């Protein structure tokens, strides 16, 4: 059954159609990558899933319900969204506090937070960063921290906007493995990327945005 559905979605900006009558269904647990040229509207498209951008026409359904009928925190409990710029996603001075941020406010027991935090620190190779202020981390470390923080929330679906930006070869390899593990655990992923070398390693369907439409890419 589809988890994210675009029904006849059109989006216009400054009189120009970015997409027109897009129909798309992303199943729970699916792994899809969206590619397209700069300015094609990949980020805009992904922001529609979290209700941050409203379509000019049509509807976006999340778990069978119009995304606009959810409160933002309800969407956050279903979809984890990784922004291109990880700096907008870090709210705490240390890595450990950042990982436990949401769970602390949700009233989760300290021991549970601690156990989950430890797991994420190892999974995302963040142990060496524990003594460093979160804002002094490298771009790649911040990106991994932001992703780990999102996963602390146990989302059903992940939307990742250009997650390989600023990652070296080794870290890209680590990210590739982590994403495959996450997918194997049943979490759906929508990856937005230009990075064809990275995409080729993934067990993913590839969609392409072009000329106001979205189509499946073949030959990957």
């Amino acid at each position, binding site marked *: 059954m589809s988890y994210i559905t675009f029904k006849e979605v059109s989006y216009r900006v400054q009189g120009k159609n970015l997409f027109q009558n897009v129909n798309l269904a992303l199943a729970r647990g699916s792994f899809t990558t969206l590619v397209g040229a700069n300015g094609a509207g990949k980020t805009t498209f992904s922001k529609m899933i979290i209700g941050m951008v409203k379509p000019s026409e049509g509807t976006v359904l999340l778990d069978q319900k119009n995304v606009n009928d959810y409160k*933002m925190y309800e969407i956050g409990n279903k979809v984890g969204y990784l922004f291109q*710029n990880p700096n*907008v996603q870090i*709210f*705490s001075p240390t890595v450990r506090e950042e990982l436990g*941020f949401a769970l602390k406010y949700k009233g989760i027991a300290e021991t549970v937070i601690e156990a989950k935090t430890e797991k994420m620190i190892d999974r995302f190779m963040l142990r060496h960063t524990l003594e460093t202020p979160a804002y002094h981390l490298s771009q790649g470390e911040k990106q991994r921290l932001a992703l780990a923080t999102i996963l602390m929330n146990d989302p059903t679906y992940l939307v990742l906007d250009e997650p390989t930006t600023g990652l070296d070869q080794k870290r890209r390899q680590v990210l590739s493995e982590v994403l495959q593990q996450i997918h194997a655990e049943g979490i759906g992923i929508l990856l937005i990327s230009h990075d064809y070398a990275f995409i080729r390693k993934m067990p993913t369907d590839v969609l392409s945005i072009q000329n106001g439409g979205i189509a499946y890419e073949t030959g990957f």
Partner: protein
Amino acid sequence: MKPVFDPRVKLLAATAVSTVGVMSTSPLLSLVNFLIGLIMCRIFNVELFKIMKKMQRFLGVCMVLIIIQSLFDRSGNAILQIGQLTILTDIGMYRGINYLFRVLIILISGMIIATSSMKATIQGFVQLGLPYEFGFMAGLGVRFLPLLTEEIRNTYVSMALRGIDVNRLSLAKRLEMIGSLFIPVVYATLLRGKALAESAQSRGFVIGGKRSTFEKLKFEKHDYVGTLAISMIFAVLLVSERLVF
């Protein structure tokens, strides 16, 4: 065809309208000043409604702050009471209205200045005899405002997406959480400032350095008329602030 005004006329207009806005203690004078500001927006081709629509959330927050401020003002005669508790006084209401007009006037001033290009605005500052850096800073502020707005919005959404139902939190926890929002916003601003400074220095920009320019601004007939009209209108408003309002 509508005349294109010199940035110096726009700077004068923005200065005049905001000076009266800040000095006015009368809601009526503030209203007159606001209406003149609106007329200026029309003359200087400000896309007022488009910008206001984009800023509706910010304006909403301003409205709430103004209402709260009015409610906490205890001076004057009560106009709304519940039992023994005074909710709103006449002076509180007047002050609230005045604050509202001040906020709108400051926004209008920014919008008027932003109708000229950054380069023209800086040149306007320089030809007015003001330091180049003032114009440069004002221009940068205007140019990077949309970018910062976008970043602040992303930060806000990113926090909301952490899945925390804010309504269930105690007031102390809510305030603590809102405080955390400032960390990425301030950091992003500092980072952008640093990147800008490095970029400017790498192109040979030195504070206090003497600069030459190819383009000089020249007053046309409509600029003289505009300057005269603005000066007269605001001189009358400032005098009437003492005598009439």
